[in-house]
């Protein structure tokens, strides 16, 4: 057995007695040589495609998977607080939670809970600003019963006043607690700075939570607008065939009425470029930094979009293989996390920038390193090697998009909801493979403007140093929330 030598002794030993290496099993190659000599073929696999059906005009996707005696059903409803006026913010935000907890017509919340427990039905409800989603997982033998109960929860919520009040109280508490976390403060203030009075810039406030905003009428109104068939997509995966699922799904869909009126168009934000430095004082051992400027490059089947995806990974979204991480964390040790961000909404501008957290004394140096890294993209454009590593990562890891049937179905539902082609993932794979270093350099040249960044720092002013901050630009102090 090979003796484990202390590191430095080992290094000396290699110099004088390379023969030691030959006792390493698997030949005289070093691990590095072995890695370099390895070549792997493409990962071959069959891409399962969900079957597609129509029930009462509603698209239903189904992907069978007999591995475990479990069935998962997912629903997505288009519609969320982002489509309605601010007066509906609380009601639209509350809807998913109250469908879960507020009981159903003729059945108190406790009875709903008891039945969920008895049949081990696992539910989740959630929403973004533009959609409400829910999923249900149950042992196959209880599939029919579970779909019936879950269908009632979605279609006939009772909005039990006591549960509404509990939800309201929890929200009030989270309003109070928001300033406790510097990260939450930073992101919410940053959104408010750039998006102003657009739903992206909203943050729940006490005024939104007035009991009058959560009356039965308000909740019913929002429920009626969102929970109707034209907004609905259904996905089923697991231990069930279409023949078995069909009658159950039909009953489920028929509980949900057709939409009385179409959803309003979402408001387009007037994203405000506000170059400069903004400071929120908070006495803590770590400061949070967010910097970004608006950018207009929507997600689309377009070479520029794919170049941006690869570019963002190289710049700072690719973990340890990316430049910002390499400079800020690996080289300087300033931060545990540091990354770029590049959002690509389809109908309005997104953001391009970076985020990190570091002790107050290194907040400005960390920002400077990030800025230098961004500016450095001109002198040291992304290399062929960086592009290849990033593309290889996507191509070789592609199989992980097909590991789990419910992930496949929910992704397909997402594409449908976003009006993307059903084969978007294939197009994405082809798109990124066509990206080269010139395209990445070009997309940064066209879109990245380090001098236009809005830089927000939440942290201890004295330790950050006002003078140091001024090096970055004119400083505006914002009130501490």
């Amino acid at each position, binding site marked *: 057995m090979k003796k484990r030598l202390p590191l430095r002794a080992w290094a000396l030993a290699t110099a004088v007695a390379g023969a030691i290496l030959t006792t390493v099993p698997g030949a005289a190659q070093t691990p590095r040589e072995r890695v370099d000599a390895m070549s792997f073929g493409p990962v071959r696999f069959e891409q399962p495609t969900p079957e597609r059906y129509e029930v009462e005009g509603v698209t239903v996707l189904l992907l069978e998977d007999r591995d475990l005696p*479990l069935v998962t059903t997912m629903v997505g409803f288009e519609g969320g607080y982002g489509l309605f006026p601010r007066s509906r913010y609380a009601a639209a935000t509350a809807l998913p939670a109250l469908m879960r907890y507020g009981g159903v017509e003729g059945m108190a919340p406790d009875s709903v809970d008891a039945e969920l427990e008895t049949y081990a039905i696992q539910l989740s409800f959630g929403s973004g600003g533009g959609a409400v989603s829910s999923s249900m*997982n149950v042992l196959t033998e209880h599939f029919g019963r579970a779909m019936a109960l879950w269908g009632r929860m979605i279609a006939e919520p009772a909005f039990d006043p006591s549960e509404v009040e509990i939800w309201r109280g929890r929200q009030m508490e989270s309003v109070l607690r928001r300033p406790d976390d510097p990260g939450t403060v930073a992101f919410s203030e940053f959104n408010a700075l750039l998006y102003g009075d657009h739903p992206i810039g909203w943050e729940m406030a006490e005024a939104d939570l007035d009991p009058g905003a959560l009356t039965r009428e308000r909740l019913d109104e929002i429920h009626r607008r969102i929970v109707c068939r*034209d907004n609905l997509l259904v996905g089923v995966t697991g231990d069930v065939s279409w023949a078995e699922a069909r009658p159950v799904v039909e009953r489920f869909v028929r509980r949900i009425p057709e939409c009385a009126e179409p959803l309003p168009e979402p408001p387009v934000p007037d994203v405000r470029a506000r170059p400069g430095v903004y400071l929120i004082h908070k006495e803590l051992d770590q400061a949070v930094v967010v910097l970004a400027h608006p950018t207009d490059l929507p997600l689309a089947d377009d070479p520029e979009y794919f170049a941006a995806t690869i570019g963002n990974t190289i710049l700072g979204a690719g973990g340890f293989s990316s430049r910002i991480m390499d400079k800020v964390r690996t080289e300087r040790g300033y931060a545990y996390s540091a990354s770029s961000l590049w959002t690509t909404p389809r109908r309005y501008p997104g953001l391009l920038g970076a985020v990190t957290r570091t002790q107050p004394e290194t907040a400005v140096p960390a920002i400077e390193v990030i800025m230098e890294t961004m500016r450095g993209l001109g002198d040291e454009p992304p290399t062929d090697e960086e592009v290849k590593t990033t593309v290889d990562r996507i191509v070789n890891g592609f199989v992980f998009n097909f590991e789990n049937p419910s992930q496949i179905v929910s992704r397909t539902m997402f594409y449908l909801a976003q009006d993307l082609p059903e084969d978007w993932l294939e197009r994405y794979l082809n798109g990124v493979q066509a990206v080269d270093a010139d395209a990445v350099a070009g997309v940064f040249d066209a879109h990245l403007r380090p001098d236009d960044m809005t830089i927000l720092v939440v942290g201890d002013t004295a330790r950050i140093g006002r003078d140091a901050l001024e090096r970055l630009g004119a400083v505006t102090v914002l009130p501490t929330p």
Partner: protein
Amino acid sequence: MASRLTVSRLVVSSLGVAALMLASGCGSGPRAPAARTSGVPAPAATLAPSPGERLPVREVTLDNGMRFLILPRDGAPTVSFVLQFGIGGVHEREGQTGIAHLLEHMLFKGTTTIGTRDLDAELAYFDRIDSVHDTLLVARASDDTTAIERLSKRIVELEDSARAFVDSNAFDRILTREGAQGLNATTTSEATIYFVELPANRAELWFVLEADRMRDPVFREFYSERSVVLEERRMRVDASPGGTLYERHLAEAFRVHPYGQPVVGHMRDLERISRRDLEHYFSRYYTPDNTVAAIVGDIDPDHMERLARRYFGDIEAGEPPPAVTAVEPPQREERRVEVGWDAQPLLRIGWRVPSQQDDEAVAVTVLSSLLTGGRSSRLHRRLVTEERVATGVFSSVGPGSRFPGLLQIDATPRAPHPPETVEALIYEEVERLAREGPSERELERVRNQVAAGAVRRMTSNLGLAFQLAESTSLEGDWRETFRGAERLRELTREDVRKAAARYLTEQNRTVAVLRREEP
């Protein structure tokens, strides 16, 4: 369906990238009071032995003591790897807290052949840097601020010079470009766990790289990485009210046993740990007989076994880690700790309970579930739904599992109710449970949760690999992870009542309260 877009707050999720980085399971404080999504599982059904115990796991033990658990599964051609070393926070001596976690970070820095452009040139810097660090420690001891600044700067300069010969993050890049997912590691009180998923045809890459870093790691870029860990500590503890409360609570509850030490380490210790300390620690503890690997996915077990023998078979056996001998003396009276913070109040209560290997562990787990497991649990119902004095209440048994620990409750008081109100109601409920025991229906609910959980836990290969490695490493048998349901069936209402009466008492508890203190 029409084509409106989700108005999402994409900015917020961008910090999620942190998940790509070396997360540490330690010091993360109380569980985030995330919205719980119902879910109370299944009729206990007919599960004897549980489906998990019937899995065709191949167990291989190499001559050097290293154990492999290999489980082929149908599905996409991917494979999940978990490598668990049976060492963590409890094996750290005072003055060196955080070393296990720091080592976890350093094992991503490469080896004698991976991550270097010129090993000799790199190593030539090590002694110089280390001796400057020795001098720095002396300067710190004498509070010589000029020297501290000069020497700290010198370390940075020397590491920058050495970096010319380093191929930074090569280990990560090799795996990432081959499509690896979720490359990461975590350190707990009792274990250090490395994990990654690969396309199945690239499985051999894992064997080459893991065996290499187990045999010949090089702790390059040590001092800059130590700074990263200090930032991690700031993020999880020093700038986090929940994290600070957690750390202070454990320190008060465990005055002798190392469960009282933070896994992420004290700042004063982290600032002193040297590269030599780390080398010593590594050679002492990272031995094959202290190591379990679990491999789950679309693989051929024969092939995996051959690779295991080929790559790991020759690593020297080493000695088992010394037993943790510290025993926390019995607690005689309630302990309390207060933390002042510019934040809303938080409450943590921990009762001393036996280790997870103890016969009564099942009863303690059931107590935790009866108290806070789901919306119909006693404390959720009382505090959140009925009295509305809290917005969330969670419990767990921890901080580890091998030694007597705590049944710990985290509650978030709802303004204007002070922590005392919440605390008093928790005691009322606990006392009632100790007096009356649970109802049969409540107990059935917990049994159902465990039984359905046993099926659901098999859905992910990586999740299964974690369970197999952990059960083997901590309990000596991978099947242990699936035996909960069986033990639960034998448990009576009286067993649970007795456990509540014995452990959930005033003298047996430590209470930590975070209160607002203006800056």
